[in-house]
C-alpha cells in the first residue's frame, strides 16, 4: 500500500501550484496510489552499488564563450504576456513576506 493520502495530494498540488477541488483530490489519491505502487518496484531493482544515470549520453564541459548575442526587443519580450505595463510584465500582488 502506498503512502498517498488526500493531504499529501493537497500538499503536492500546493508545491506544484495547481488548484485542486476536493473531488479532484479524491480521484487523484486513488489514481496516484495505483501508479505509485506500480512504479515503486524500481526499489527492488537497485539493491547494491549502482551509479545513477542522469544523462543518457555521457558528456562533459560544454560551454559557450562569453560573447554578447542579440536580445529580444522589449516589445518582442512582452508580446506574449497576458498583461504588461511600463515595459514590464504585470502580475497580481504577491501575498508573501515583506
Amino acid at each position, binding site marked *: 500500500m502506498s503512502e*498517498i493520502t488526500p493531504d*499529501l*495530494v493537497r500538499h*503536492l*498540488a500546493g*508545491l*506544484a*501550484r*495547481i*488548484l*485542486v477541488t476536493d473531488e*479532484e483530490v479524491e480521484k*487523484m489519491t486513488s*489514481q*496516484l496510489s*495505483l*501508479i*505509485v505502487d*506500480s*512504479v*515503486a*518496484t*524500481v*526499489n*527492488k*531493482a*537497485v539493491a547494491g552499488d*549502482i*551509479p*545513477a*544515470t*542522469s*544523462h*543518457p*549520453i555521457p*558528456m562533459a564541459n*560544454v560551454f*559557450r564563450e562569453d560573447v554578447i548575442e542579440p536580445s*529580444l526587443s522589449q516589445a*518582442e*519580450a512582452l*508580446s*506574449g*504576456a*497576458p*498583461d504588461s505595463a511600463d515595459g514590464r*510584465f504585470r*502580475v*497580481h*500582488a*504577491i*501575498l*508573501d513576506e515583506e
Partner: protein
Amino acid sequence: MSDLIRKNASELVELLNSKQVSSVEVTQAHIDRTNAVDADVHSYLHVSPESALATAAEIDRKRAAGEPLHPLAGLPIAVKDNLTTTDAPTTSGSKILEGWVPQYDATVVAKLRAAGMPILGKTNLDEFAMGSSTEFSAFGPSHNPWDLDRIPGGSGGGSSSAVASFQAPLAIGSDTGGSIRFPAAVTGTVGTKPTYGAVSRYGLIALASSLDQIGPVSRNVLDAALLQDVIAGYDKHDSTSLPESLGSMVEAAKKMDVKGLRIGVIKELTGAGFQPGVQARFNESLTLLQNAGAEIVEVSCPSFEYAIAAYYLILPAEASSNLAKFDSVRFGLRVTPEGNPTIERVMAATREAGFGPEVKRRIILGTYALSSGYYDAYYGSAQKVRTLIQRDFDAAFAKADVLVSPTAPTTAFKLGEKLEDPLAMYLNDIATIPANLAGIPGMSIPNGLAEEDGLPVGIQLLAPAREDARLYQVGAALEKMHEDVWGKRMIDFAPELEVK
C-alpha cells in the same frame, strides 16, 4: 485523389529537382487533401496554407533562376505542435498555450526553413506530449486513417495520421517514450527516434529533457533518412547535442543489405502480452531477415522489467519542473479567480484551468518523486534502473548489431478504450521506453497487418548510440523484402478516406 500526394518524398524530390512539378503544385495538392479529409482525421491544430505556398513559390522562383537549392527544397512538411514557430501558434496541445505565437523558431524549424521546405501546419499531440493516443490533446483527438474510430498513436498522432492520410509527405515528431515509433506502428508509417542529442531540442517544448528527442515521420525508410539528414547536427543552443556527425542516413538506407549482420531478438519483448497478429508478423520478419543472410540471435534484457516504472518516475519528475514555467506571467493563459486574487492564486487557478487531467496527474506524481524524503526511493532509484538498462543494452549489443522487437504490444485501440486507465495506457510503451532511457536510436517500420483486426503492425529496430545508420540500412532492407512479398507499400493497403 491527386497522384502527387501518394508519392514517396524521395520521388517528389526527384520530380521537383527535375522541374517536372513545381513546389506550388506539390504544396497545393497537400493543402487540398487536408481540406478534403482533415475534418475527419484531425491531424492538424493549425494549418498555414498561405505561408506554405509563399515558401513554395519562392523556391520555384529560385529554381527557375538556377539558384543553388537544398535537395529537399520545395518539399512540404508538417511539424508537431510542440516545436516553436514564429509564424504560427504553438500550443503543445494545451489550453494553457492557446494562441501563443513564439518569439523564436526551434532549431529544427529553422533548418526546415533554411532547406526551403514549406511548412504545411502544426500537428496534433497529447497535451505536452503526455500520452500514447492523442486523446489527451486539449483540442480533441486525432483519428487513425485506417479506422477513424481508433487512435493514431501518441503523442505524435497528428504527425502519424497526417502522413498516413497523405496530408503531408513528411512530418516532424518527438519521441520521449515512443511518441514517434508507436504512432508509426499503428498507422503503417515509418518513424525514427534518433540517438539522444543527434537532433537539437532547442525550441522543442520540453516534456522530459533527458528523454526527449526529435525525429522524422514518413511513409518509407529512405524518406525518413532524407529528413533526418536535414534536421540532425550539432547545435550550440542545445548543450546535450552531439558534437560529431553521425554520417549520412540516406547512404545507409541505400545500402539495403543485411548479409552477415547479427539481429538480436529481445527475449523480454516477445511472447506473452503481445497480440497474436503482432507476434506472428514479427516472426515472419525474422524469417525474411534470416533468409536474406542475417544471423538471428536471442538476447536478454532482464532490467526491462523495471523500465516502465523508471520511466514513469523520471518523466513526471522532469516534466513537473519543465512545466513550472507555465504560470501566466510571460506568455500563455491567465485565469484570474474571484475575490482578492494574488499572484499565487492566479498561478494556481491558471494551472488548474490550463492543464488537462493527465498533465496534472504527472506533475503531481513528479513533484512527489522529487520531494524530500522520497527522492532516493523514487527518482534516485529510477536513475539507477536507467544504468541497469544501459548495461543490458551494452551486453545485448555485444552479441548483436541491431536489436528487434514488435514496436507495440497491440494494434491501434479504440478511442476512449484506455482513457480512464492510466496504467493500461502506460503499458503500450513497454517496447519503446528502454531506448529513451538509454538514449539509443530506434525505428519503427510497417510490418504487415494483424489478421485478427486487419490493422497495421510495426517492427522496432534498435541500434547502439550514434549507430543510427544501422537502423536505416536494416530498415530499408526489410522494407524492400516486405514490399517484394506484398507487391506494394503497406500504406497502399489502407482504406480510402471519404473525401469532403
